[in-house]
């Protein structure tokens, strides 16, 4: 009891160095755990976006590219899929549902997606949750638009607002300002790319391009909204489609059918597989990041060891006093290992607490900036293993000064050489 209290008082006596050492450990813990959180958060976010989809089809391209532009809305399609081919493929008996996606227009940096009502019915995220409407309903009129939650939140739109779409991906491109859309619905937050999208019907995409040819307006031609509503406007092409099959067992054969489709070159990817491919690609970077954080932890442990070691000389008298009172060299060594352990535990606790605090503050920012939703929950098994490894590291860091003190206390005897 008294020994422990005196050990704590000894620490308090050196509080500045002790605090800095704890801070170093705490920062390294934050970094390591933070990298791990972002890593697993990114994986979950990406994986959650394609929950329930069996196959994604598009024009022939690499699987990863197709997945990126169709599901994650990153990058652009190289080519389109004709509506005829799409209809042909989704009419196959193994297809349970299909969501066509037509990309290419935008609104103030957010992508506009031409699709059908199936989008709201069949698209699932995070373990099979369906999309929900925070307000309003799917598009009914030709010039209705359904906003993702982030689009509505960031741009401050509510139901009934009128917005215009821009041609192309940039917000500074030519505007379809003659044909305003009315906000008919706003989706609830999903943490997926749906939050960042504006959804209109496929026919609306065709309608706003009636007066356009190869990226610019046809001079002098103006078709009114009412006129457009009466036109039949069948879609000519889509960018990609997300398809659900009746049975998972049919996935491989269906993929082969699409890949060997004769009328035009198409690709079908299995989202899970393509994601694996993607993680294999970014895995090296992840490992490097984790490696760097691990090195920071090692550095903080070396700092801990050096801190305790540096105090040994001034504590030589302290150790000699303890020895003269009957403390064994082992007790002296145990005190130092205990000190290292205590500081490590303090560093782990404060680092973890600080990380959670930072996550709570930064979570919406990270989500907005990178589309990664870091769910704040208790440390995972991986986190716990990392923390345990740090704790063991701290104990090991205490062993060197402990051994040194053990030797010194044996050699010094009662003589205190100061």
């Amino acid at each position, binding site marked *: 009891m008294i*020994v422990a209290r005196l050990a704590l008082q000894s620490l308090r006596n050196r509080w500045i160095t002790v605090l800095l050492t704890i801070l170093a450990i705490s920062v390294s813990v934050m970094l390591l755990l933070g990298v791990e959180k972002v890593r697993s958060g990114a994986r979950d976010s990406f994986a959650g976006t394609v929950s329930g989809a069996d196959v994604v089809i598009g024009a022939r391209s690499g699987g990863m590219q197709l997945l990126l532009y169709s599901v994650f809305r990153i990058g652009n399609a190289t080519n389109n899929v004709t509506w005829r081919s799409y209809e042909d493929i989704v009419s196959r008996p193994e297809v349970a549902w299909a969501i066509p996606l037509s990309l290419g227009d935008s609104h103030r940096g957010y992508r506009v997606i031409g699709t059908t009502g199936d989008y709201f019915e069949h698209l699932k995220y995070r373990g099979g949750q369906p999309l929900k409407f925070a307000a309003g309903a799917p598009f009914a009129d030709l010039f209705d638009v359904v906003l993702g939650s982030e689009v509505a939140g960031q741009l401050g739109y509510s139901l009934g607002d009128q917005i215009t779409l821009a041609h192309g991906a940039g917000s500074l491109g030519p505007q379809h300002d003659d044909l305003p859309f009315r906000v008919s619905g706003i989706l609830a937050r999903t943490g997926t790319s749906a939050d960042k999208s504006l959804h209109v019907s496929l026919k609306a995409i065709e309608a706003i391009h009636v007066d356009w040819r190869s990226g610019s307006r046809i001079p002098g031609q103006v078709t009114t909204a009412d006129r457009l509503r009466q036109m039949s406007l069948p879609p000519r092409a889509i960018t990609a489609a997300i398809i659900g099959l009746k049975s998972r067992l049919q996935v491989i054969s269906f993929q082969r059918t699409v890949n060997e489709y004769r009328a035009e070159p198409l690709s079908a990817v299995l989202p899970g597989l393509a994601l694996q491919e993607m993680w294999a690609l970014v895995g090296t970077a992840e490992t490097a990041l984790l490696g760097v954080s691990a090195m920071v932890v090692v550095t903080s442990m070396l700092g801990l060891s050096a801190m305790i070691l540096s105090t040994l000389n001034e504590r030589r008298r302290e150790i000699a*006093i303890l020895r003269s009172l009957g403390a064994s060299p082992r007790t002296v060594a145990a005190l130092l290992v205990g000190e290292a352990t205590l500081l490590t535990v303090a560093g782990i606790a404060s680092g973890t607490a600080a990380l959670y605090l930072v996550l709570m503050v930064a979570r919406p920012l990270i989500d907005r900036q990178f589309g990664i939703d870091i769910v704040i929950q208790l440390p995972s098994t991986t986190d716990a293993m990392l923390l345990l490894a740090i704790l063991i590291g701290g104990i090991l860091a205490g062993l060197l000064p402990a051994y040194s003190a053990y030797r010194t206390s044996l050699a010094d*005897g*009662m*003589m*205190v050489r100061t």
Partner: protein
Amino acid sequence: MLMVRPPSPYPAIFAIWKDSVGKRSLTDAVNVRGIEFQWNVRDSFALSIGAFQIPRGERLLLLGPSGSGKSTLLSLLTGIVLAQSGSLEILGQRLDALRGSGRDRFRAEHFGIIFQMFNLLPYGTVIDNVLLPLSFAPARRARAMAAGGIECEAHRLLSTLGLPANIGRQTAATLSVGQQQRVAAARALIGSPEIIVADEPTSALDDHRQQDFLDVLFAQIDATGATLIMVSHDRRLARHFTRVVEFADILTFSKTAGSNR
């Protein structure tokens, strides 16, 4: 050197009785027979003592200049280091028969030690400093407990040593040198260990404080009947002791430059 002990003339039953009851009172506090010690092989810093006894209850002053092997002798007596050869018995216990941790425990139980200065852990309170040895010495703790509780006993010792009543909660670093030496004395005395070892305890004090300190220390030692071994270079202290021994008379100490160095 192998020590052969003569066979005991007593039957076994007497030997047991002697061990369990008589040992403490019958044996010397310190009994040295021909020990040789060298710190390590590299520096030839050697010490040897022929035969030397300190009876129980004696107040012994060991006189010698600094560098005469005082610290080494005290390290040997308290079992912090072991002689390479010879026999050293403390209260009838051969120190070389104990393992390292056993010697540490033995030291905690039977010795109270006062250094020249810087005796205390500066960041600890006075009371914690006084009670610290009891953490390593269960028998001393039990004795202090029996004397009215360990904290009470600590306060009693502090006040008999002439320290103010409220000093217990103060941090050791805030005390004057004289006060620190008294706290060190209280720490050495708590739980009544059989042997008090003092290494120049008064050299940091001015003359009249020396006298004060020795007076209260002796009064307490008389009260418990402990053996006092004090090391000093100050011949004037001699009148307070029952026996005065010159270092040079009992030990040879060589500090010549080693041949292996």
